[in-house]
């Protein structure tokens, strides 16, 4: 047997035996995550097979997709989920987008996180294996602490070189997505490596891994290292961890190397995420809304980038600029360091932490003629509201520059 991939090692550790690529195995899970829409669909299946959850301390239920409730229907779904949490002794989380809060407070290197949400791979930025599942899987995991998985092949992506001026991790992953297509990593794990990855801090890695969901991947993962340790120390929860790596003779599906010094600010044009173009090709496109938010790109580092570009300026008249910090921690940091006050003075509308406008349920739903620059992860038809609206995905820098100009703009001129 050839050497093992990182994904293979993590899954083997959770199966209690050595697994080969392609094996189907039942594994134990360290964390079960679900939120205010996927939990609603997990409660009935759970009750079909169990009375009590396997361990309430390993179950994380977030109110983020439509919180605070935007309608009586959602209030009713929240009520049902709250009753389930109470009955089972599960803590309810109201602290922002599930993936961001899991990274801040819970996810640990080499762990396995089963999340009933497609952007669960975000947590791969912590060096954990985090995979998106459906509500039935979440119900089964809540009941048994286990899940069935197939051991995926791994695509290794090596990043080399330095990020050019005005180019951010979002541009890198939008560029890779364009190259691989929206199904380029279907069923596979994406493992990041190369000399540049050591310079990517955990928040940047969360952005890279988050978008792996958009190329079909089962998970994105950055092996835990000194950056992971630094992040955990900053969050006050560092404990020693093993720096697990793929073996040098591990069997990769393919190995791709990107020189990131060649990347440009990139905008993914509607209606699919793999339609990325250099910002110059869409510069000047009139817009009506900018959404700075989501588990992809609204950490404090993202707010800092946007602030740097917008400092001392105003949002273009008529443009709705919505800032939705990803979590309570980000919200509090941005309150404390004055970003939110400054954004508000510029004309931004500050929304409470959560998924916000990303999925078209509340706090920034798009109408027929809206054109939105969004730092989120999906530009599908109808994703943020009307199927006639257009969504351009970009980095916080492009979003900020576009908010100033009322049209898609290159951020580099504001960074000199």
């Amino acid at each position: 047997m050839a050497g093992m991939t990182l994904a293979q090692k993590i899954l083997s550790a959770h199966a209690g035996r050595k697994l080969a690529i392609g094996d189907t195995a039942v594994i134990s899970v360290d964390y079960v995550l679900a939120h205010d829409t996927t939990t609603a669909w997990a409660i009935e299946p759970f009750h079909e097979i169990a009375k009590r959850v396997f361990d309430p301390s390993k179950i994380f239920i977030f109110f983020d997709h439509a919180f605070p409730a935007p309608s009586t229907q959602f209030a009713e779904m929240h009520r049902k989920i709250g009753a389930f949490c109470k009955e089972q002794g599960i803590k309810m989380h109201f602290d922002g987008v599930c993936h961001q809060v899991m990274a801040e407070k819970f996810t640990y290197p080499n762990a396995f996180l089963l999340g009933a949400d497609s952007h669960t791979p975000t947590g791969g930025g912590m060096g954990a294996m985090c995979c998106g599942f459906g509500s039935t899987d979440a119900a089964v995991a809540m009941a048994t602490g286990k899940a069935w998985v197939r051991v995926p092949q791994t695509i290794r992506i090596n990043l080399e070189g330095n990020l050019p001026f005005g180019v951010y991790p979002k541009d890198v992953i939008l560029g890779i997505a364009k190259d691989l297509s929206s199904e380029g990593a279907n069923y596979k794990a994406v493992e990041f490596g190369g000399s540049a990855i050591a310079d990517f801090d955990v928040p940047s890695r969360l952005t890279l891994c988050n978008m792996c969901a958009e190329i079909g991947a089962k998970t994105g993962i950055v092996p835990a290292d000194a950056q992971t340790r630094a992040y955990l120390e900053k969050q006050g929860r560092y404990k020693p961890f093993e720096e697990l790596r793929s073996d040098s003779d591990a069997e990769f599906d393919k190995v791709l190397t990107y020189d990131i010094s060649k990347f440009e600010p990139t905008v993914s044009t509607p209606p699919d995420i793999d339609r990325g173009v250099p910002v110059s090709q869409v510069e000047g496109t009139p817009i009506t809304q900018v959404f700075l938010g989501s588990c992809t790109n609204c950490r404090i580092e993202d707010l800092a980038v946007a602030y740097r570009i917008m400092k001392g300026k105003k949002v273009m008249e008529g443009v709705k600029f919505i800032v939705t910090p990803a979590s309570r921690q980000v919200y509090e940091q941005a309150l404390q360091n004055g970003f939110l006050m400054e954004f508000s003075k510029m004309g931004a509308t500050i929304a409470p932490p959560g998924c916000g406008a990303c999925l078209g349920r509340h706090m920034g739903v798009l109408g027929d003629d809206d054109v939105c620059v969004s730092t989120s992860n999906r530009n599908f038809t109808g994703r943020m509201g009307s199927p006639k609206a257009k969504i351009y995905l970009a980095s916080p820098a492009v979003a900020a520059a576009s908010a100033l100009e009322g049209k898609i703009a290159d951020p580099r001129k504001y960074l000199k």
Partner: protein
Amino acid sequence: MRVWKFGNAINTDLITPGRYNITTDRRELAKVAFIEHRPEFAREVKKGDFIVAGRNFGCGSSRETAVTALLECGVAAIIAPSFARIFYRNAINNGLLLVTADEAFISGVEESHQLEMRDGSVVNLTTGKSAAAGVSPMLLALQKHGGLLSFLKTHKIDELEQVQQ
């Protein structure tokens, strides 16, 4: 039965848009299947109908409502060159038949055609063409048990490792 033909990358936002995901009632959910993308679908779909689609069917969000709605509509099988991962899992767990077939066969299918599943292949009765039908062994195994939840009522989860044999 009839065929409903769809294009590439039919995402879960097209199948059950987020704004309509406000119920946990399966019947209500079935009414919103493709509500904006193809409004007549939910009204006219009949039990036993096939969906024939392009690559990466079911991409996007993890919402199991996409599978639940199509099951509740009575869709007999979805035939496509490839399916997105979470949608595929959700279909396996719920016993919605997903069949992979090559793109040449799929591009030759029209909505007026009659299809049939026959011993590991899918046959276009109208054109006489057929293609190998790829079905997940886990799906076939779980279908026999009526889906994952039914399986777990009589088995331990660890027994899933053997279920495909």
